[in-house]
């Protein structure tokens, strides 16, 4: 017996929450996400990241929830969701619980869901003023390939233009998507100069724990982390700086 969950209203809808965040049903396809203009204005980086998943055919079926629960360290939508501090709502036989996305992946292909549980929604916080979030990845082929390294960055600027808040989550360089907390700490309270962003990106590269395999060497992945993180930080600071975006 197979039960199709894609006809349950809350699984398939994208709604604004009362706090001006978003509740995205776990069965909403990447294709449907891309069609939501308001969501794309708040979190363009999330849509962009999700649209890196598979082909357009796959995106008609792929979901943020699936990308997360698949448990791949290379999941393209996950680093950015972690960096913007998204949460997920989980329903089970013992009721519902909310968890930070960060606590969900536990190992390659494994997430912290029990067999009687189901992910029902991804919850995005309201986008803060003067903030931005972007994910960049590198693939040997341009299309239909898996990231050999990726970096999802979220930045909020303070009143004086300093970095008030920063989160960096790395893809494909650890068994699970990895927060680069030392790099984040280096940024807080500082003015976002090119030198500072490059230094933080270098620190992030040092925090990465990549492996060498047929797709890339550990050294190459670490170098990519530095480049991708610096570019993502640059992009976020620029975007957050131009009024970036009042919700």
């Amino acid at each position, binding site marked *: 017996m197979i039960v199709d969950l894609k006809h349950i209203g809350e699984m398939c809808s994208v709604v604004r929450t009362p706090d001006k965040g978003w509740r995205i049903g776990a069965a909403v396809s990447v294709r449907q996400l891309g069609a939501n203009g308001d969501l794309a204005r708040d979190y363009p980086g999330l849509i962009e990241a999700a649209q890196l998943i598979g082909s*357009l055919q796959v995106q008609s079926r792929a979901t943020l929830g699936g990308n997360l629960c698949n448990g791949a360290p290379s999941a393209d939508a996950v680093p950015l969701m972690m960096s913007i501090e998204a949460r997920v709502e989980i329903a089970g036989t013992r009721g519902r619980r909310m968890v930070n996305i960060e606590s969900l992946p536990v190992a390659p292909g494994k997430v912290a869901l029990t067999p009687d549980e189901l992910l029902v929604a991804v919850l995005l916080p309201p986008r803060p003023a003067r903030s931005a979030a972007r994910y960049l990845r590198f693939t040997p082929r341009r299309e239909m390939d898996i990231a050999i390294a990726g970096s999802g960055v979220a930045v909020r600027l303070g009143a004086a233009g300093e970095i008030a808040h920063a989160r960096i989550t790395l893809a494909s360089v650890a068994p699970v998507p990895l927060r680069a907390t030392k790099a984040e700490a280096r940024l807080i309270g500082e003015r976002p100069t090119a030198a500072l962003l490059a230094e933080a990106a270098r620190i992030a590269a040092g925090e990465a724990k990549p492996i060498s395999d047929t797709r890339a060497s550990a050294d190459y992945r670490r170098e990519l982390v530095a480049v991708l993180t610096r570019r993502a930080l640059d992009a976020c600071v620029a975007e957050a700086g131009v009024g970036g975006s009042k919700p």
Partner: protein
Amino acid sequence: MKTVVQCEVNGEPREALVDPRDTLLQLLRDRLGLTGTKEGCSNGNCGSCTVLMAGAPVCACLVLAGEAEGAHITTIEGVADGNDLHPVQAALIQHGGTQCGFCTPGIVLSAVALLAETPQPTSGQIRHAIAGNICRCTGYDKIVTAIAAAAAEMQAGARQ
């Protein structure tokens, strides 16, 4: 336990008995006899089995037959209007965008879906739209040329 699936394929109501493990691809090919949809890799990488569900391209091998309940599906058999080929089909012939032909049904449906949403695509948009359709014969250039020509043809037709 087999169940009955009712859906609309190429504008016609269809009904079939399916196993819960059957894919939409098996439903189309084995139950409904629509063998224009090809089975390549069977795991969503090659795009040979691309069909449209509610206008969206999907790999029929990644959709369970049971999920087709109530769905509107377009296969390669539903693209031409009788004997009049769709502009994408005509352009693929004219520009030599097909050789062995195995990937062609999927390419046609990816292109039809693209042009429905983006009537004047750039070359980059065309390449992105068929990135999930693997062709081992043509090298893609002629396919891209053909889709661009079909877009121009359809635009000209729409202006008349």
